């Protein structure tokens, strides 16, 4: 066995001429990450002595695997793709290498990388206790997409800053199920990152919050009741049938086939809806800010980013640092534009310089400034009308939220499909949140 391993190692070493170190990068199969994989040879032009191996897994499996690997110190990964929700949690657990010392150690990289070019809100979300723990690969917020044709037909116009009340009245006018078009498509698929992402922004802007400053759950408040009643009704009355199985992907398909009047979802969809290869509404898609509710203008659009971080268990920190600063650099963004032949397909939302770039503004003109404003104004520390003890807009940055959010998402889906009433769903949700606050030791 040993000789076989030695033989294999020799073969590998021969295969990649002068590879002094090998790093393993764990990531998901999202389009921007596929591009990153394809550009590995460009990284090797700069750093010929670093061999890059890729591990591509579905999001949930990736999260579990990295958690298991880091917690057990196995050290299988040198670079991990980590969501905005996990970065502060993992940093507090001591699972990620802080990057601030690495920047101090590599002044050349620090200078060309220019951390202050990162959009401030993005940087804040990745900073814990004054230390940067991850660098952003791309970031997103949420916004409103609408079909100009259907709006014209119904004789309505979309303002730049719509309210949810306006959205409901537009949906009523556009809705035409007999002809296969629906007023509005919203996520109903249960999951903390599915229906709860959109619903939480509605709940925030209706004036609600998950917990008060003493970690008392607020899911039985009037704001939650109004928000959920609104969300359930608007989907039931003006949404496509079977909405509880629709997540991002499903709604993207419906919207791009011209079947939805409106859709409130991730800003990354702007690029996808403008792409003739996958969308039939390239010329008729309109963009607006995420709607605001009757409670507050805060927290109506979310913040999410996919980031690259170095797990504490990595034994190749230097090589990993070189990789993550390459893949999130200004030069990398320009490289993607050059290889893809379009600035509209660069990883968005991370750097101020992307949005001051004239070529990007031209290519992504219809939505670039909206997207930038949404991302830079999404503040994970000020997402609710009343004060809260947590950070996060469409999530609560505590480890238990993944389970709690999904559970409440199931109660929400139950109310949408008519299995329970909104009151029943909220009573169940309140009990679940109470249990988390108590068992997690948050309530003093």
């Amino acid at each position, binding site marked *: 066995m040993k000789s076989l391993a030695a033989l294999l190692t020799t073969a590998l070493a021969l295969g990649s001429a002068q590879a002094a170190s090998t790093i393993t990068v764990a990531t998901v199969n999202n389009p921007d990450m596929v591009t990153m994989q394809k550009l590995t040879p460009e990284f090797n032009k700069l750093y010929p002595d670093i061999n890059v191996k890729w591990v591509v897994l*579905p999001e949930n*499996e990736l999260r579990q695997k990295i958690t298991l690997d880091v917690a057990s*110190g196995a050290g299988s990964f040198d670079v991990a793709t980590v969501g905005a929700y996990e970065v502060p949690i993992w940093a507090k657990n001591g699972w990620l290498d802080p990057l601030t010392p690495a920047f101090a150690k590599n002044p050349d990289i620090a200078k060309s990388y220019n951390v202050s070019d990162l959009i401030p809100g993005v940087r804040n979300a990745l900073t814990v206790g004054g230390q940067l723990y991850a660098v952003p690969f791309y970031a997103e917020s949420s916004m409103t997409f609408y079909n100009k044709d259907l709006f014209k037909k119904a004789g309505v116009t979309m303002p730049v800053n719509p309210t949810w009340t306006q959205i409901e009245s537009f949906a009523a006018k556009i809705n035409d199920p007999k002809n296969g078009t629906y007023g509005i498509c919203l996520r109903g698929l249960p999951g903390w990152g599915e229906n709860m992402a959109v619903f939480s922004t509605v709940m925030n802007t209706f004036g609600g919050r998950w917990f008060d400053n003493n970690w008392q759950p607020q899911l039985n408040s009037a704001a939650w009741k109004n928000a959920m009643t609104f969300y359930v009704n608007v989907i039931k009355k003006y949404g496509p049938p079977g909405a509880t199985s629709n997540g991002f*992907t499903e709604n993207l398909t419906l919207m791009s086939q011209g079947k939805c009047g409106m859709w409130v979802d991730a800003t990354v969809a702007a690029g996808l809806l403008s792409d003739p290869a996958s969308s039939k509404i390239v010329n008729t898609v309109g963009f607006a800010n995420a709607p605001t509710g009757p409670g507050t203008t805060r927290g109506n659009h979310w913040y999410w980013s996919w980031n690259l971080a170095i797990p504490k268990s990595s034994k190749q920190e230097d090589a990993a640092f070189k990789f993550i600063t390459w893949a999130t650099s200004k030069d990398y963004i320009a490289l993607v534009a050059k290889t893809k032949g379009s600035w509209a397909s660069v990883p968005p939302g991370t750097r101020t310089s992307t949005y001051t770039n004239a070529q990007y503004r031209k290519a992504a003109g219809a939505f670039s400034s909206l997207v930038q404003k949404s991302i830079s104004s999404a503040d994970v520390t000020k997402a609710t009308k009343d004060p809260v003890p947590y950070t996060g807009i469409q999530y609560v940055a505590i480890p238990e939220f993944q389970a709690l959010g999904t559970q409440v998402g199931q109660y929400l889906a139950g109310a949408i499909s008519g299995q329970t009433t909104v009151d029943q769903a909220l009573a169940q949700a309140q009990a679940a949140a109470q249990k988390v606050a108590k068992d997690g030791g948050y309530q003093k």
Partner: protein
Amino acid sequence: MTTLPQSGTQVPANNTPKKPPVNVLGGLLTALTYLLTFLFFFPILWMVMAAFKTEAQAFQTPPVFVFTPILDNFRVAFERYFPALLNSLGAAFGSTILAFILGLPAAFALAFYTTPRSRSVLTWMLSTKFMPAVGVIVPLYLLFTNLHLLDTLPGLILMYTTMNLPLVVWMMHSYMTEIPYAIFEAARVDGASVWREFFGMALPLSLPGISATALLAVIFAWNEAFFALNLTTSDAAPLSVFIGSFKTGEGLFWAQMSAAAVLTVFPVIVFGWIAQRQLVRGLSFGAVK
């Protein structure tokens, strides 16, 4: 399967003795069989069709049945296919061979050299299957980490061997007990050694059972996803991990994933087709017990 039409035809024949409705009923049953077979086959057909569609067609409602097939999905899937295929072949055949090397002598001993504890040994072996895989993953993961077996083909082979060993022992034990014991007694009278009993008689006589069991063991190892996902990352990742890598939260992926799945099931269908005759013989051998 074969007993079903017979018993079905007898009951109405007794109730209505005038007319022979046998043919009508037989025809109905045949139609039902075709329908059931089609129902079982449909997901596979649908997967193959999706593999030749564009992403938008693969997801469209109402579903598309007529379309111009494209090969783009296979082109994407082939980019990452071969390393995973080699790992799957290595893990499936390596673990099957290893499980047979260990399991055949065990089955032989448990069948012909029984002790009062033989039954308990068999039950104990089966009991390793009682626990859900997820219940043992953390200790396994730590073991693999410390033995430096994470993401190695030998590690995966070992894992699948432990998974297939109870299957091999149980199935081969049941085939071997079918062999008349008198044959062995006669051989012993002629002075045959244990080795000769094993290699000269038990093995050749249970060949159909061996091929059926081997095919099952290969299929189980081939289709395994949970351990593969947790214990391999890139170097030793087999096809089940390869399929998973096509899922994405942004954009459509069903057509590409279907192409990957078609490429994954194809070799198993080929093995099954080659081993078909042996398989039927082997399986019915045990069934008439």
